[in-house]
């Protein structure tokens, strides 16, 4: 009887030790994505907005468990010129690095925009059935931790000029230090 009770006590101690160790050491808090500057939208879009006479809407942020999305929008008074910029900051997770997660997000963004992604990202015109109405692009920042997507649309007679601004924004924002808060 004494042996049985000691065996039970031993089993309980062993189970408690394993469960305690698992909860303490095996479930660390998930790493959060690197935050974006609170003035990011104004800083990033200021020059282009001034050129096109666009009004920049307040910066918006959505936080998930680890990822966070910052979105910016600038529109003309008439609403016919619109510049949208999103920064999806991702964090790694068990079994998937930050780079793998950002690549997945880039493929999703490029699929939505249209052009097939390369290692550098994707870019191309925004088209309706009859006209080119803007330019769009998506890329991963140099530290692999964020996917930036730029969408710039305008009436067909002005849409051709959007591609150079999308290229300029891409060059300016691909360095993550520009985006980081």
């Amino acid at each position, binding site marked *: 009887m004494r042996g049985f009770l000691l065996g039970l006590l*031993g*089993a309980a*101690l062993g189970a408690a030790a394993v469960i305690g160790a*698992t909860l303490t050491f095996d479930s660390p808090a998930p790493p959060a994505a690197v935050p974006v500057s609170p003035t990011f939208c104004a800083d990033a879009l200021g020059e282009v907005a001034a050129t096109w006479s666009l009004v920049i809407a307040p910066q918006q942020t*959505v936080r998930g468990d680890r990822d966070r*999305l910052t979105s910016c*929008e600038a529109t003309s008074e008439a*609403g016919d010129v619109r510049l949208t910029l999103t920064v999806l900051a991702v964090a790694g*997770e068990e079994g998937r690095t930050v780079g793998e997660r950002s690549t997945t997000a880039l493929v999703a963004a490029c699929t939505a925009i249209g052009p097939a992604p390369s290692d550098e990202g994707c870019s191309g015109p925004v088209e309706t059935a009859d*006209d080119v109405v803007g330019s769009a692009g998506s890329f991963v920042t140099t530290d692999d931790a964020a996917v930036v997507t730029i969408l710039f649309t305008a009436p067909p007679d002005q849409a051709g000029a959007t591609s150079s601004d999308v290229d300029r924004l891409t060059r300016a924002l691909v360095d993550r230090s520009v985006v980081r808060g």
Partner: protein
Amino acid sequence: MWDAEGVNLFAVAAVGVVLGAAASGVAMALVEERADTTTSTAVLSEDMSARQCAIAVPPEAMQTLGILAQPGLTGRNECEVALGSRDILVSRRPLLSGGSAADLPVAARQAFEIACGLLADDTSEVERSPGWLGRGSRACARTPADGTGISEVVLLTNAHSLVEIRVLQLDLPDVEPLHEGLAGLVAAAEVVW
């Protein structure tokens, strides 16, 4: 120092520790595996069912839009009501697969912002959260100024689903019934997704 009975009792206790640790280790592994499966599948998009299709296009909205017919699945994960050259299409866009369910709101918002950013046309009005859709809906819409042609609404539901609604209508007298019908479709989509 140790008699035989003491050694036996120590051995029994030691075996108990080992068995308990092994059993709890297996149990914890199973629990974690189940939790991982739950979070991963939660982010995957499910195919639209016939029942969801029937609810997503209510008769009142069809009547207002002048396209009253039986809704059906197209086979491309879309719900369609077609009447001659007039058409209603409701689809739920796929979101990022994998990852944690807790990051679904971020993935959904990202997809929503891109979809809205791509809504552009040379002949239609593009609006963010238009008043005619009612309060509380996070949506963007592109509607022809005279109510005739292709309309498109992208909706981010409260449950973080991204729904696209397209209507081709050539016979409406003005934009009001179009707005009313689209608002009915948005309200139905909020219920379904």
